[in-house]
């Protein structure tokens, strides 16, 4: 490898190390916060599927196809390999 290539490789490594101290600590926290808000939305929109009465179920049902994948990730994150009874039939 030429010296120019080696220098570029080292500069890229330095940029990535900087990214590590910069982005990595935030990434997990931001994603965790995002997931919490997403879970809250799922609960608000589809509480009837978890057994709690939901007066707007008729309207939120329209979102069902878009949220199946999110629901699947939610129950996996909660440590449930299969979805709870009465919930989304995602897997």
């Amino acid at each position, binding site marked *: 490898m030429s010296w120019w290539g080696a220098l570029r490789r080292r500069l*890229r*490594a330095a940029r*990535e*190390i*900087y*990214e*590590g*101290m*910069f*982005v*990595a*600590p*935030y*990434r*997990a*926290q*931001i*994603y*965790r*916060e995002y*997931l919490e808000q997403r879970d809250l939305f799922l609960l608000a929109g589809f509480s009837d599927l978890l057994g709690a009465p939901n007066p707007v179920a008729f309207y939120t049902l329209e979102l069902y196809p878009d949220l199946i994948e999110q629901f699947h990730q939610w129950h996996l*994150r909660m440590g449930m390999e299969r979805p709870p009874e009465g919930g989304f039939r995602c897997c």
Partner: protein
Amino acid sequence: MSAIALLVVGLLAFLTGYHVYSRYISTRIYQLDPDFVTPAHELEDGVDYVPTNRHVLFGHHFTSVAGAAPIVGPAIAVIWGWLPAFLWVTLGTIFAGAVHDFGTLWISVRHRGQSIGTLTERIVGDRARVLFLLIIFFLLLLVNAVFAVVIANLFVANPGAVLPVWGSLLVAVIVGLLIYRTRVGILWPSLGALAILYVLIWLGQYVPFTLPDVFGFAPSAAQLEAAAGDVTAAQAAAHVDGMRAGWVIALFVYAFFASVLPVWVLLQPRDYVNSHQLFVALGIIFLGVLIVNPEVVAPAVNTTLPADAPSWFPLLFITIACGAISGFHGLVASGTSAKQLNKETDARYVGYGGMIGEGTLALTSILATTAGFALVVGVDGWHQHYGTWAQASSGATTAFVNGVGVLAEGVGIPRQVAVIFAAVVVISFAATTMDTGVRLQRYIISELGAQYQVKAAQNRWLATLVAVASCAVLALGIDRGAGGMRLWPLFGTTNQLTGALSLLVVTLFLLSLKRKIWVTAIPMIFLLFMTTWAMVLNLIRYYSDSQAVLLAVGGAIFVLELWLILEAARAVRRALTRRGEGAGNGC
């Protein structure tokens, strides 16, 4: 001796250690496998388990393990001369600390990213889990108490650092809110925070702040004796005690609130700003050494030790803790880094390489105190500063801060500004460690409360209050805080014990895989032997000085140490018996 020569020799030793010894360990002992499915891939969840580029993970890991301790320890230990400190930092890092960090990262990866605490229970036994929790509890208690005293001493000695340190808290909160609650992104708030911090550092020299002495202590008998009957000098010393005590209390009030806030509000933005300070400080010190090229005026081995100073052997090995080996790193390696390792072969770069970075930080502390600081005060002034053990301990950070000041002057930064900058770096690191320490202590108290069904202990505010109060009592309990730095050897011992326990876990795992164990067993035995010997000497000293608090805390740690040795002996015997029966259970 030229400081450049010392720097070059140290860095070459680290490079050789990384390229030769760590390669041997990774291929022959740990036998890293590039095709092994790491927990980051097996359990990927986008939050904790995330396959991460090795450079990115190195940056995260290094800034998580770096702190104030590798600066403070060597700054005290140079009282024995630069050579013992230099040798322990370089050889300790290469053969013990880096092997430990690398090993804890690797073993956690081989066990689905489990923490070293869980692995202790699984590999050593149930009782070892309790032992681990107790050692961690003492480690946190001591680190919070010691760092409160370190910061208070720096505030008293550098009133110009008060404005930038407390101002940066406000800036960090604003940065946290901007990043999480608006759409401005990370870059601009962070750059703005750095700019404001540097302006505050510059302003600090014009707006020094001295805390009023609200306690009004009367001079103690020791102060009157030290002042040789000069009542005014004794009162001045008592006045400093009052200011220090005020700062310690203010710091624990801060730690109380900081540790109950969500991490993104204060802790993370502060950590991030601190990380920049670390790299800037390292750059300034290296550049300063290269430009100024000061002579290392401290003796290679100090043959005229003060009367109250203990012998370097074995006290050196607990005075320099994190700069050579640190049990705390095992918590980081197994707690977060192991969950993000993309390939098992990256463990060498992240674990071993991260500790080399920490060793480099300790090396800069040696250079700043033995070469830079001496340029300010002269050879005689250096010997005077390190004239007593107590003075060397309490004035360690002052020596470092002034040493960085003179090196920074060589780079073109006004010395007064550079001294404040260095003080801010050390204070910020110590304060962030305090935030985290109090937070973790709260978790341990709550966990114990849940285990023994004590509801009050599970209350967040009460648990934090107990954590903060116990640390504050310890910090102020030894000569009104003036003797707070006497806790440093106890902190070093506990830290080394945590490291020895992690090395024991890795050794037992290697035994079960029927591999050579000397790379981890020798540092473990060395650590246990040195810390036990040093603790016996310390306990004798505390007893003869009638220091009840130190004797009680030291006695408890000594019991834990003996317990650890017994557990180690039992676990190794059991593993050897199993190995003899051919019951290896390699992953």
